């Protein structure tokens, strides 16, 4: 029988709260049921010494143990001071109401557990229950923030004795949740355990300056400093765009000038700059479509104006606001009528929905998704399309941020149904989709053994869904396409398909939506999608 993990175990000094056993993970269909390499690398002794690994042996944050008892005390006190701020209107008006509601009204019925892909995929490890983080958090709040009477804490079972290691484990645990909010969707009480994960991340970042370096230092900080989390400066952007123009000319047989900083354009397209480097074909496809449809658009070369990412949405309200404001400023200085976000889920949610109550006045420039615009172009017949060019199995991944979190469900489907004769849905899909496993910054978190965990645990349910969607042609003879209109999801698919050897075993490739549209364009002599891209 599975060992039950109690909250009290998070306060135990030393040891590991849970040992993951890949044999317990949910099964994948053959031949994926037998992995040749160990699914999760164990850390070296040196890594274990430098970083706290006592949650599950995985490292995303990797807090360094304090050198002295004084250091430990100072750490705990600073954290608790931050925790109090979470409950203040001044410091946390942004999420006070949803946070308070979840903390007060969750009845711990565990109905949300089975909705969580991480919990289920891991073989139902207690530590990954959506309720585990909030429970640990609630006890710390009850004991140290509300300072409830010890007797009351006994009755409520909310007593806890804090030490540094508990906090180190809490920090790690906040990065075992993809913020997909599938758990929140099934809660009849309107509670949202994903939000608690985010609020925990926030205390660590806003109060302690602690966050995975890929998200903070190399992410939002780098974006604010040079313009993009990729490190791409405005000058480098220009070089990349020139290269993109050449590529387009080679494929299309004619040159298209990519508009940059075009004053008074109708649309400012903010794209995920990571695409320019990792999947340049996505930008190329956008350029080809917008040009063919005669859209008046431009890119920006302003700081943050050419990179749609806004990692703050996962961990830090201040960083979030900084990027959102700069994106709006870029649009304002160009005098565009609206901002359109390219294929990036978290950028959609961040830039269109979350920023909605951050930017105001003349910075509140209308913002929308590019998917309805693409749908309009495809359906209007403005570009000539031949669906037989996409006659291979295609399935659609729903990025959580775009679909469950903002209700853009059908435009991408209507496009695929029109241009892909072998389109099939995953089960479940739409607003009930499963996260790719790379949500909330996981896809870019590459340190130590975290990618192994991401591929084998948080992404496992999605991998299973993909394989199930293609079960009519499981072998490598038939080439198959997972359409993921999101850069982060694509990052996760790239790693995960490689991890499982899905190209070799099943010829499964992934890509965006616009690539499929351009692939169907009769103007192109050669197919746009090159399977060799895998």
């Amino acid at each position: 029988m599975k060992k039950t993990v109690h909250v009290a175990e998070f306060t135990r000094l030393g040891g590991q709260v849970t040992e993951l056993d890949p044999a317990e993970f949910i099964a994948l269909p053959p031949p994926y049921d037998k992995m040749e390499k160990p699914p999760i690398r164990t850390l070296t002794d040196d890594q274990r010494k430098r970083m706290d690994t006592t949650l599950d042996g995985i490292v995303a944050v990797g807090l360094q143990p304090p050198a002295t008892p004084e250091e430990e005390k100072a750490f705990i006190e600073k954290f608790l001071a931050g925790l109090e701020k979470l409950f203040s209107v001044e410091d946390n008006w942004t999420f006070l109401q949803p946070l308070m509601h979840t903390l007060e009204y969750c009845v711990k019925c565990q109905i949300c557990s089975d909705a969580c892909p991480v919990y289920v995929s891991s073989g139902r490890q207690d530590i990954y229950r959506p309720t585990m983080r909030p429970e640990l958090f609630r006890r710390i709040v009850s004991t140290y923030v509300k300072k409830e009477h010890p007797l009351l804490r006994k009755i409520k079972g909310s007593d806890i004795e804090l030490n540094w290691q508990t906090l180190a484990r809490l920090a790690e645990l906040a990065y075992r949740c993809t913020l997909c909010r599938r758990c929140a969707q099934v809660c009849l009480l309107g509670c949202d355990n994903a939000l608690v994960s985010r609020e925990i991340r926030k205390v660590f970042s806003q109060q302690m300056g602690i966050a995975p370096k890929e998200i903070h230092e190399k992410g939002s900080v780098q974006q604010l400093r040079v313009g993009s989390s990729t490190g791409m400066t405005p000058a480098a952007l220009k070089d990349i765009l020139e290269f993109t123009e050449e590529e387009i000319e080679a494929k299309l047989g004619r040159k298209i000038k990519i508009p940059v900083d075009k004053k008074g354009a109708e649309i400012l397209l903010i794209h995920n700059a990571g695409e320019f480097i990792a999947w340049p074909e996505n930008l190329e496809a956008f350029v080809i479509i917008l040009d063919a449809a005669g859209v008046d658009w431009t890119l920006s070369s302003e700081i943050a104006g050419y990179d749609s990412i806004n990692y703050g949405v996962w961990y830090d309200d201040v960083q979030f606001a900084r990027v959102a404001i700069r994106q709006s400023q870029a649009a304002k200085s160009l005098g565009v009528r609206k901002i359109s976000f390219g294929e990036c889920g978290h950028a959609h949610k961040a830039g269109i929905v979350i920023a909605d109550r951050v930017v105001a006045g003349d910075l509140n420039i209308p913002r929308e998704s590019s998917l309805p615009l693409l749908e309009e172009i495809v359906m209007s017949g403005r570009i000539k399309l031949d669906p037989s060019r996409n006659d291979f199995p295609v399935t659609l991944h729903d990025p959580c941020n775009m679909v469950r979190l903002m209700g853009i469900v059908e435009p991408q489907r209507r496009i695929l149904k029109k241009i892909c004769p072998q389109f099939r849905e995953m089960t479940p899909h739409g607003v009930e989709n499963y996260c790719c496993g790379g949500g909330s910054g996981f896809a870019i978190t590459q340190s130590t053994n975290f990618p192994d965990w991401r591929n084998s645990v948080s992404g496992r349910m999605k991998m299973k869904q993909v394989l199930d969607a293609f079960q009519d042609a499981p072998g490598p003879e038939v080439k198959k396409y997972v359409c993921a209109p999101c850069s982060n999801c694509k990052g996760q698919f790239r790693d995960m398909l490689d991890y499982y050897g899905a190209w070799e075993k099943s010829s499964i490739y992934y890509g965006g939506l616009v690539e499929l549209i351009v692939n169907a364009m009769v103007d192109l002599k050669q197919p746009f999608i090159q399977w060799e891209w895998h």
Partner: protein
Amino acid sequence: MGTLIVVLTYIAYVFIVVVYSVKIVAWLRMPPHIRWDLYPVIHEEHYRYGGSYYEQPEWWTKPRPRNTWRSLLYSLKDNFYMGEYYERNRLYWLFLLPWHLGFIFIITFHVLCFFAAAAMVAGLDIAAGSAQLAGKGFYYLLLITGGIAFVTGTFGSMGMPIVRLADRGLRNFSMPMNYFNYLFFLVVYGSGLLAWLFLDPTLDEYRTYWVGLITLTPPELHPVTILHIVLFDLFLIYLPFTRSTHYITRILAYFFIRWDDEPNLRGSALEKRILGLLQQKISWEGKHIPKGKSWVEAAIESGLPEKK
């Protein structure tokens, strides 16, 4: 004894109404938050598949039809049905639903008793064989609501601790208070059930009790009925200390968090409130956050020293 239960009942009702109101007002008075909507949003036109107004190009130029009644019915429905529990943990649902129905029906029963008693004071005869149709109607309505309350409440309170202990996840997240609640509520409903089955099958005593409350005349009641009424009053006083406000706050959370898709349009009242909130000073201590600045000021700065 009669005087005691009249006084206790008034205290209990005033207490529960005041504390519930305070809690709900406090909930509602929290400042507006950043949007955190989750789909399907039931007032949306395409709620069936979870679509939003963002599915249209230039959504801000289009009407945003909103069906508030549908949302209200949807959110209320689950107070009586609890569909997710039915789908995801049927055994739990089997006890949880009756347990909750017990709450709803016992409160409804007492509210109806009040109206019945008021009607009796006005001259209505409430009995099975009443010559007045309204009297007959009241009689059966009280019998049905009271009966359902006692039976479902007792059944649920007996089953809940069993299912909680039998389920690994539920057991691990249980607190001593849960088991106290089950026991206490079992005594409340059980005493009502016993009084009804063996002493007062027409529930006449409750009408007498409520007439006494309205006319401020201490009623003459059987000791078991008195016991149940005292327990019920204590139950009313105890409820605000539990999470029971969730009957209401869950609906608020649906409307004001999960389904709050109100865009912040230029010049709107919402924009004004947000601008006010953005002026507040923040005290976060992370190195990337400037000290003593407001949200706006902190957001305008890039937060880190320039690279040398």
